[in-house]
């Protein structure tokens, strides 16, 4: 494991690796190691690059070295009643024995994998909060992109390109991102007893109302008891989150409840329980099960999510729940990953993508982790990678 302690060291190590054609597997804390590599590679971690470089709460902007633990970033933000708007999930629970609970996720890893949670639906993904980066490209050059201002169209947006590139285009050394104030109040409206289809309709109706929903998930009966110690009402639970100033949340909750009563019985959870529930949705609590059962993370149009699950149920044993208004589907397969079926139905339902987050070693070796791309897009992506990593040393084969 290579652990450079400075950006200059990182550039030096990478320049040498490029000269020797030594493949490198870029990581932070390596807590999300679900992506397969097609050849062995020397791990290089950002964890030696740690610490907050600049944080002015009044500007709502933070600059941090990429290997800084997420917990350290969140502690600094919490002390100033601020937060990461995109609610990055923690993969350690679902990856169980594969994840390494003793390690800490890093902030660089969050952006390199574009990790977002429930608020992604309305507040954007990690990539939307990322304002600027410093990285080392495959030639060992230190490159800055973006900056620390919210609006910036100066040149090509390499920030977006590197975000979510899973360490295959560059080694992030520093990230600058926007943060938001923590909403003083949070409430959750629960509608009980809806099947998947009705839940999708209810969520679409809710988000069309002027009440600023910041989370919309559907938890079928099979997973209900895995949340908030089983305290959700009996049956299926469709949950809608409201955040903001306390007086405003109260008013909006009343309005929302009044409309949602047409769909089914409505209850409210209150602030403390809401915070727990949405953290558990974020971290995919039902599938923190200590198993190796295949787990898919699927993003499709919100109206397609329940169709996908219904179609797959005819082919395989699956369990599923929905976030992002029904468009983010977490699916645990009883036996095989059934990658062919999953990906074929996604295409048939208008497109999207499936990521194999968890599976046995043997299955992972067979199945591309990330959604295979159409030929033209794959060719373009390969050309872009060659421009950032000409020797092809960063995570060969990881993203196709």
């Amino acid at each position: 494991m290579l652990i450079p302690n400075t950006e200059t060291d990182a550039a030096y190590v990478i320049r040498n690796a490029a000269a020797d054609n030594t493949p490198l597997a870029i990581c932070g804390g390596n807590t999300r190691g679900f992506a397969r590599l097609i050849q062995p590679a020397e791990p290089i971690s950002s964890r030696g690059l740690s610490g907050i470089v600049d944080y002015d709460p009044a500007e709502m902007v933070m600059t941090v070295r990429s290997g800084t633990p997420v917990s350290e970033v969140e502690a600094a933000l919490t002390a100033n009643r601020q937060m990461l708007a995109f609610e990055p999930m923690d993969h350690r629970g679902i990856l169980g024995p594969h994840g390494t609970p003793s390690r800490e996720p890093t902030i660089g890893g969050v952006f390199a994998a574009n990790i977002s949670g429930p608020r992604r639906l309305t507040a954007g993904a990690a990539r939307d909060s990322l304002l600027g980066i410093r990285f080392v490209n495959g030639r060992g050059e230190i490159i800055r992109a973006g900056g620390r201002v919210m609006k910036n169209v100066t040149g090509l947006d390499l920030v977006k390109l590197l975000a979510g590139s899973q360490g295959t285009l560059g080694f992030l050394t520093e990230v600058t991102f926007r943060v938001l104030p923590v909403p003083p109040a949070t409430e959750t409206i629960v509608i009980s007893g809806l099947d998947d289809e009705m839940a999708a309709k209810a969520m679409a109706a809710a988000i069309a109302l002027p009440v600023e929903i910041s989370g919309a998930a559907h938890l079928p009966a099979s997973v209900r008891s895995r949340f908030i110690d089983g305290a959700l009402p009996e049956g299926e639970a469709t949950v809608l989150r409201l955040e903001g100033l306390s007086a405003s949340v109260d008013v909006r909750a009343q309005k929302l409840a009044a409309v949602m009563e047409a769909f089914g019985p409505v209850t409210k959870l209150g602030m403390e329980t809401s915070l727990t529930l949405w953290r558990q949705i974020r971290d995919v609590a039902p599938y923190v099960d200590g198993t190796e059962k295949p787990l898919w993370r699927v993003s499709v149009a919100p109206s397609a999510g329940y169709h996908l699950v219904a179609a797959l149920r005819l082919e395989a044993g699956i369990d599923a729940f929905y976030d992002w208004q029904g468009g983010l589907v977490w699916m645990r397969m009883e036996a095989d990953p059934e990658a062919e079926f999953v990906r074929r139905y996604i295409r048939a339902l208008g497109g999207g993508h499936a990521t194999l987050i968890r599976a046995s070693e043997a299955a992972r070796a067979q199945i591309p982790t990330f959604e295979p791309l159409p030929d033209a897009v794959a060719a373009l992506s390969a050309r872009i990678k060659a421009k950032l990593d000409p020797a092809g040393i960063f995570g060969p084969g990881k993203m196709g």
Partner: protein
Amino acid sequence: MPEAIQFLPPRQEVLSRRAAIIDDLRGLLPPDCVIHEARELVPFETDAFISYRRMPLAVVLPRTTSQVAAVMKYCHRHGIPVVPRGAGTSLSGGAIPQEDAVVLGLSRMARIIEIDYANRTATVQAGVTNLSISDAVGIDGFFYAPDPSSQLACTIGGNIGMNSGGAHCLKYGVTTNNLLGVKLVLVDGEVVELGGKHLDAAGYDLLGLFCGSEGQLGIVTEATVRLIAKPEGARPVLFGFETSEEAGACVADIIASGIIPVAIEFMDKPAIEICEAFAKAGYPLDVGALLIVEVEGSEAEMDAMLENIVGIARRHKVLTVRECQSATEAALIWKGRKSAFGATGRIADYICMDGTVPLSKLSYVLKKTSEITDSFGLRVANVFHAGDGNMHPLILFNANDPEEAMKAEEAGNEILKLCVDAGGCLTGEHGVGIEKRDLMRHQYTQAELAQQMAVRAAFDEDWILNPSKVFPLEGRG
């Protein structure tokens, strides 16, 4: 004294084949889609950056993606530069052609293809105007959030090319944050789709890379954008301050307090006078600077936010606080702001800068900006999006006086360097175009520019797409 901005020298082999190229284009497209008569080409000579103009070789106005693909395939094969154009409202010269270029205008691809409320998306052709999306869905309680001042005219294709912002992006983000998918034509005529109605496209974030690429990576022909539920209400409030410094400090304190209004717009005294004379918006004329702060939501929420904001403004010795009493009054307040550029154009020629600076540097940059324009003997009016630090100093000059015009350009360059040196950037939402191209070295190292150009080459190795823009002409390698 700076030199006039250069364009790439025209490719002689293209110019010499002009007649044959026009014939070929007429073979590829219906006859009415190819424009080549000199007098008909005039409207395409420039865009809203009117100091520069070049007559293009021809203009094509295709109606379908396959026609766009046919033109790209042909131009790629024959090494003919292509300059994409939406409505031609670029303030940085992004759509100004060159003598050897075919202008590819998307204005005839102006159809809304699908509105899907269940998924809150609109799929539109690239030539659809920004405002027409909100107009189409407004009756059902939705809108499309990015709202550049030119939204009545500018197209969604152009918005994607420039990653356009607007007054309300403090809360809702800019184009890249509201774009879900595109259909686009690559330089060789291949048609690809990125993203769709789902979130976070698979693979590299090519959609994010494409957004703001100023027509250099390909031609967008269709886009799927996010629709958002309209807030219950919105209330702009005017705050008048003694000085620009007080107003700037107030903005920083509002953000620091944890309140994020949907918009915070700033006008200094010259801008107030210009806009009031034009729009009769009822702006106070006895103040040194004005903030328009807009909050939205339910009545309860707006009341609560405004109470906090007014409290902060009082600490900055606010002179005037005026809440609108009616929707008409609110519309008038925005009309004044959104017509700022047009109103300025009535009294003088101007160039509009677009640098963005960290909020903590707003007051400093405002002060230095007026020192710079003073030193050139020029006037400046400041009207800008203060909540996100995106400055828009309008430098006034007389275009009939070439010396003054050059002075204005030079002062503009100094102001943009100031923004970069203050930790900001050259352009927040107008794009680099030709205008800021030669300042790119002030913001980026050679290695950084080379990296961007290398990525560009993955799309367009031969520099056919909008080639005179964004990157300095020297050192392209």
